[in-house]
C-alpha cells in the first residue's frame, strides 16, 4: 500500500474534487491535468519503460482524434467505435514505426519519430477529400454515453479519471511483471539483455505499439472533450514534446511521474493562460518559455524527475532513521 500512497492520494483527490468544487474553470483544469497525465503515461510505456524516447507521439494522438471524429461525421458511428478503430490503426502504425526504427537509438530514434508525425501532419492537412484538410474537423456533439457527449464537466472528470487509472495500472504492471523487468533490461543494456535470451527487438516493438494504442485512446477522448480536431495541433511536435515533458519532469519510468509532471505543468499553463489572456494574446507564449527553461533545468539538475528524486530522499531518510 505504501508504494501506492502517492497514487491513492492523487487519484483520490481527483475523484473527490468534483463533489466539493463546482467551478467550471477548475473542473476543466482537472480534466486537462488527468488527460495530459494519461497521455504522458502512455508515452512513458515506450519512452520510460522501454527507453524508446519518441518525439513523434502526437502522430498516435492525432490518429485517435481523427479516427473518432471522421467516423462520427462521415458514418455517424459511435466515438467508442472510433476509439477502437483509432487504437487498431495506431497499434498498426506503432508496429510499423517500431519495426522500422528498431535499430535506431537516442537522437536517431527521436528524429525518425518526428519525421513520422510530420508525414501524418502533411497528409492530414493536405488530403482534403479524406480529412477536410487544414480547416480541421468539428466533432459533432450528441448527448449521451454511447455518443460520448457530456454537457457536465463532472462526467468528464470521472471518465478521464478512469482512463488515467487504467494507464497508471498498465505502468504499475510494467514495474512488477516479468515483461517489465525484461524491458528494463533492454533499456539499460540491450546487448546484455540479448545475451540473456531476452527478445529485445520484439519487446521494443510491442512496447511502442502498446504505447501508441493508449495514446490514440487519449486522442479520441481529447477530441470528444474539446470538440474540434485541428491537424496543426494534434500532429504538432510541440504536443509530442509536451507528452515527454510531463513524464520527464515527474520522473521517466515511474508510474506516477507523468501525473505529477502534468499536475505541475498543466496547472502552470491554465493559470498563466487565465492571467495573460486578458492582457494580450501573444503573452500566452510566456508559459511555453517557462516550459522550455524548466525542461532545461530539470534534465540538468534532477534527470530522474521529481518522483524519482523524492523517492531517493525518502529512502535516504528511512535509512538514516534506521541507523
Amino acid at each position, binding site marked *: 500500500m505504501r508504494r501506492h500512497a502517492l497514487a491513492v492520494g492523487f487519484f483520490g483527490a481527483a475523484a473527490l474534487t468534483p463533489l466539493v468544487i463546482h467551478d467550471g474553470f477548475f473542473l476543466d483544469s482537472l480534466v486537462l491535468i488527468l488527460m495530459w497525465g494519461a497521455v504522458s503515461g502512455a508515452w512513458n510505456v515506450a519512452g520510460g519503460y522501454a527507453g524508446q*524516447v519518441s*518525439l513523434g507521439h502526437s502522430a498516435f494522438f492525432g490518429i485517435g482524434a481523427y479516427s473518432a471524429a471522421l467516423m462520427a461525421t462521415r458514418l455517424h458511428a459511435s466515438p467508442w467505435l472510433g476509439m477502437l478503430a483509432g487504437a487498431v490503426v495506431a497499434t498498426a502504425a506503432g508496429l510499423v514505426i517500431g519495426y*522500422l*526504427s528498431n*535499430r*535506431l*537509438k*537516442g*537522437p*536517431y530514434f*527521436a*528524429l*525518425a519519430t*518526428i*519525421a*513520422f508525425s*510530420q*508525414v501524418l501532419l*502533411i*497528409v492530414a492537412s*493536405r488530403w482534403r477529400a479524406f480529412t477536410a484538410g487544414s480547416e480541421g474537423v468539428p466533432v459533432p456533439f450528441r448527448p449521451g454515453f454511447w455518443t460520448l457527449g457530456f454537457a457536465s464537466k463532472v462526467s468528464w472528470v470521472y471518465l478521464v479519471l478512469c482512463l488515467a487509472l487504467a494507464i497508471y495500472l498498465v505502468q504499475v504492471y510494467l514495474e512488477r511483471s516479468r515483461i517489465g523487468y525484461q524491458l528494463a533490461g533492454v533499456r539499460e543494456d540491450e546487448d546484455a539483455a540479448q545475451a540473456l535470451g531476452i527478445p529485445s527487438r520484439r519487446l521494443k516493438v510491442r512496447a511502442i505499439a502498446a504505447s501508441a494504442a493508449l495514446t490514440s485512446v487519449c486522442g479520441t477522448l481529447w477530441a470528444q472533450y474539446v470538440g474540434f480536431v485541428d491537424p496543426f495541433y494534434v500532429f504538432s*511536435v*510541440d504536443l509530442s*514534446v509536451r507528452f*515527454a*515533458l510531463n513524464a*520527464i519532469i515527474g520522473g*521517466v519510468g515511474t508510474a506516477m511521474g507523468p501525473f505529477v509532471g502534468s499536475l505541475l505543468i498543466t496547472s502552470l499553463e491554465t493559470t498563466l493562460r487565465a492571467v495573460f489572456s486578458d492582457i494580450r*494574446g*501573444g*503573452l500566452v*507564449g*510566456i508559459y*511555453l*518559455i517557462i*516550459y*522550455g*527553461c*524548466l*525542461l*532545461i533545468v530539470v*534534465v*540538468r539538475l534532477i*534527470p530522474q524527475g521529481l518522483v524519482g528524486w523524492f523517492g531517493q530522499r525518502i529512502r535516504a531518510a528511512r535509512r538514516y532513521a534506521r541507523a
Partner: protein
Amino acid sequence: MTALPQLLISTVLLGGIYALIAVGLTLIFGIMRVVNFAHGEFLMLGMYLAFWSFTWWGVDPYFILVVAVPLFFAIGLGVYALVMRGVIHASHNVQIFTTVGLSTALQNVALVLWTGDFRFVRPWESSVVVRILGAAFNLSQVIAFAVALLFTLALFAFMKWTHAGRVMRATAQDGEAATLMGINTDRVYRLAFAIGIACVGVAGVLVSPLYSVYPTAGLQFVLLAYVVVVLGGLGDMVGALLGALIVAGVEVIGSYVFGSAWKEVIYFVLFIAVLVFRPAGLFGQRGAEALGV
C-alpha cells in the same frame, strides 16, 4: 525537356543554402556529439534580424551579414556557456531534452516579442530577374547561394588549414586522445558550437527574402537539415554538401512532378528510408558509430 536547366540550376541554388544550414549542424554534432534540436530556432532568429533591420532602418539583408556573423557567434558562445556546457558529457536523453527545451523557449520568446504573424522581407533584389541558361531566377536566390557557398568554403578552408581547425578535427576524431595531447576540449566545443550557430544565423539572414518569417519558421528548415545531415552521415561535412544537393534535388524535382504541396512528404519518406536502411548515411560511418547504431 525545356524545364531541365531550370530544375538543375534551382537544385544547385537551393542546395547551396541547405548546405550552409546543415554544415553548422553537422559540425556541432561531429565535434560535440550533441544533436542540436534547437538549430532551426537560430535560423529563425537570423530571419528576424534581417526582417527588423530591413523594416526599421531599410538595411538590405546582405549588409546586415556584417553584424550577423559576430552577433550569432556571440550568441553561440553565450548559449554554450549557459546551456550546452553542462550536458556535453550527459546521456543522449538529457542532451535531446536540453536542446528541445531550448528550442521551445526560443520559439516562444519570438512569439511573445514579435507575435505569430507571417512577415516578409522584400528588398529590391527580390524583384530583379536573372537569366541563367534560359532559366529564370530572382537575384536574391542567386546572392543567397553565392554567399552561402562563400561561407561554406571559408569554413572548409578554416577546418583544413588553420591550427584551430586542425585542433577541432582532432577532437572530432577522438576527444580523449585530444585531451591527452593537451588540447583544451572545452574551448574546442565552445568554438565549434559558436561557429555552427554563426553559420545557421547567416543562413537565416540569407533565406529571409525567400521565405516568410514567423516564430516556428525554423522547424521546416531544421527537419530538412537533419535529412541532409543524416544522408551525408552525421558529423561528415563533405557528406553534408552532397546530402544538401540530393535533398534540394528531391525537393525541386518532387515539387515539379507532384506539386509543391507534397514535396515535404517526399523528403520525409526519404529521411525515414535513409534512417532505416542506411542510418550511418550514404557515405559516412563516423557519427553513427558514436551513437551505437
